């Protein structure tokens, strides 16, 4: 029994035992000086382990990984390109061959159609700024994002790191669609059915100064 308890002391020190095991060991510690020496050893070992861990920047290895992803994406794209063999020339492609007259004629017609379409549709549907959060993207042209989503304006503690902000947002199934604004606020889109719980959870977090409902994402200053 004593050996069994001794063997559990490292997890008593790292606080991962269940309540019953913890109570048994705490009781034994009051009675047994040898066990108290053991727990002292493990506590000091724990401190040493944390002090001696190799420090690193938050972005350690990130650039290297993103470069590998970029290479992989490029390679798979080129592999796909190579894998698809050129189709045999059809009747149309013979008509549209570079030295034929039909090809420039089609190009001119297409240009006319595009110009007319642009004139009719206008610039309203063309977003001038696009925010790219953790997807889906929201644009200033549709600043209230999709109907099934709600907007929140959130002010983070300035000491909060980017990684923490990202995780806080992700933990509420949200994504950043704008900001920071004049007051340092970010705009988050969250699923409509989660907006109440997300607001409560964000307000309870010590890294967040303010959470308010928002109706639109202001244009960058």
């Amino acid at each position, binding site marked *: 029994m004593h050996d069994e308890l001794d063997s559990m002391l490292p997890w008593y*020190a790292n606080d*991962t035992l269940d309540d019953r095991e913890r109570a048994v060991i705490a009781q034994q510690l009051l009675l047994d000086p040898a066990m108290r020496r053991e727990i002292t050893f493990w506590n000091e*070992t724990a401190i040493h382990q*944390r002090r001696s*861990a190799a420090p690193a920047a938050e972005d350690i290895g990130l650039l290297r990984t993103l470069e590998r992803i970029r290479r992989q994406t490029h390679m798979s794209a080129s592999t796909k390109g190579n894998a698809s063999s050129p189709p045999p020339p059809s009747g149309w492609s013979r008509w549209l061959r570079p030295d034929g007259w039909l090809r420039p004629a089609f190009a001119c017609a297409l240009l006319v159609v595009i110009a007319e379409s642009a004139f009719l549709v206008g610039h309203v549907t063309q977003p001038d700024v696009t925010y790219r959060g953790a997807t889906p993207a929201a644009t200033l042209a549709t600043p209230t994002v999709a109907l099934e989503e709600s907007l929140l304006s959130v002010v983070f503690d300035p000491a909060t790191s980017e990684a923490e902000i990202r*995780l806080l947002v992700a933990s509420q199934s949200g994504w950043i669609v704008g900001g920071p604004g004049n007051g340092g606020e970010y705009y988050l889109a969250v699923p409509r059915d989660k907006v109440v719980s997300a607001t409560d959870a964000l307000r309870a977090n010590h890294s967040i100064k303010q959470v308010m409902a928002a109706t639109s994402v202001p244009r960058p200053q």
Partner: protein
Amino acid sequence: MGPNTNTSMKTAAFRDHACDLDNATALYLLQRVSAKDQDAFVTIHRAMGRRVFAFAMRHLDSAEQAEEIVSDTMFEIWKYPQRFAGLSKFSTWVLGIARHRILDRLRAPNRTTEALTSDIEDSVPSTDESAYDGMAALQREGGVRSCMDKLSIQHRECMHLVFYEGMPLGEVARLQGCPENTVKTRLFHARRKIQNCLRLLLVGEGHTISRVATHA
């Protein structure tokens, strides 16, 4: 240090990964990574990169190699995000991937593996506790550091997982691929070896155990 002190340590000590990812958040992010969302991937990278690096540095003696392990591990997550089923903690899964990469590297030719020297393991009986208790705190910290560096890789890894990562017994066993009792035995032996190593250090410095005990 009594039990009360230990309880107060828990918040500062083992929950200090500011960017700890719970499984629900991890699954949400991985779902986005499956759709090749780089932003979600960067979130995971920033949350786990430093931890993988610290883990790798316990095994490897080169920061450059440890950074490569971070990149290898994260690239695998990018390629196969759907492999995480939520059966373990997300961090355990990630460190498990890192562990495989590290072991591959250690198995590579031209690599000398470290192990505890036999004189520390065998030459001194380990039942006497006075070597540890007898040393002054500062002297002890330096000694413990030196002795931990001499532990075998498995023992160092076990220490790291329990005391840096704050993992429960079952998670350590899962990650190391062994029964829980083996994990307990590893820590038991690690403790013995550290104490024997401290004893050897004292003897090497010309102390006797009894003299040191009287100084404390």
